[in-house]
């Protein structure tokens, strides 16, 4: 699973930080989302999906990158 964020949507709500702090933080200068690791370890997929759902503006975009052959 791969994380991208639509920065222009972020309003700094910080829910993602509470749900998946391993992957999200808020910038010190603006309070807006910063991705700490854009590749999600398998045990963490539930939390990251929940973070994406709980984001009030849908700024967290998840995709499943296909494994390399």
């Amino acid at each position, binding site marked *: 699973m791969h994380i991208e964020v639509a920065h222009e949507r972020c309003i700094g709500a910080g829910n993602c930080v509470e749900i998946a702090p391993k992957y999200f933080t808020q910038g010190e200068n*603006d309070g807006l989302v910063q991705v700490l690791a854009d590749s999600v370890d398998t045990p963490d997929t539930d939390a990251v999906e929940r973070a994406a759902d709980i984001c009030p503006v849908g700024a967290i975009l998840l995709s499943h990158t296909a494994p390399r052959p």
Partner: protein
Amino acid sequence: MSIDPPEIPVWPFARKADAPLIPPPQLAELRSTCPIAQVELWDGSYAWLATRYHDVKALLRNPGLSSDTSLDGFPQSSETLKAARGAQKTFQRLDPPQHDVLRRMLTKDFSVSQIATLKPFIEALVDHLLDQIEAAGHPVDLVTALAEPLPAHVVCKILALPPDDFGFFLDRVGRFMALSSTPEQARTAAADIADYLAEVVTARKEDLADDLVSELIRKYLIPGALTEFELVHMLHLLVIGGFDTTANMIALGTILLLQNPGQMKDLREDPGLIQGAVEEMLRYLSVAHHVAFRLAKADIEISDICIHAGDGVIAPVSAANHDPEVFPDPQAFDVRRDARDHVAFGFGVHQCLGQHLARLELQVVFTKLLRRFPALRMAASPADLHFKDSMIYGVERCPVSW
């Protein structure tokens, strides 16, 4: 033979007298019969009312719905609320992109980590207030002794205002929020707060420090990215947003816990439960019961309904938070329920800026209150509790003993 047309419900709905802490039962009825229904408002106009969790979230995230209360036909719960909200010139009633520009000026000061730095201050403040309560002896009105002063002092701290001024704020915010105030009273109260804050800005410009107001002056007012009018109204919003909401949650939350003594005991004995318990209290009580009103700027299709441009929309967080599809047996208060997906703080771009501050205050106050007064009990019968009919739901007094 004539057929009576189905009655269109009139908004707002009444809570049940014997179940004052849960949302009006009509919300649940409509959710199962007509989840997006027309309701009639105080002025005879109509609006759409959504009661399902997923519909409420979809609507609050939809860019086709405007929060601009000055627009013709914007739905309101009463004439007073229309006057109060019309007087607001804050980013709460702006849409993106203007909304986002203003909100982002505040996001760093309300981030999860920045708010966490206030923990020592809040803990010391709560200890002090509880000391005063213990010294005064029971019975005590928890509203005046704890629920109101706590958030008031925190807002004063953040804005670097003299703590003595919080009585003034309490009075004016109360009048602004009360549905029973006349439109003129609401407008006057709002103007009083704005005048006070304008004086604060004028004085602070001459004496810049490192508080939030100074920072906004330095970073945005002086370079011209913000007008003085916009700054005053931004501060106005922080005051309004931070007072009643948290105060009412503290008072109602205490009543709710006292109604569930087994869980209150669990919470006192296992402080590790506090985070989840606070989320469940937020879900259950949903005190912001007159927010999430919008006006459609474009046609929107949702769940087989077509909302037309110009239609009013009401998407109450209280209805969403009691949707049994998402929160099974929603009227059951359960501190161990995973209620974190609630929308008590709203959804979409306007989701509460102060939510982490609210959470921190509630977690600290309930942890300490329960530990300090293990024998806490109501000193009034349920019939003697008067619930506040205002923009934010609350209770007038909360007499307790221990």
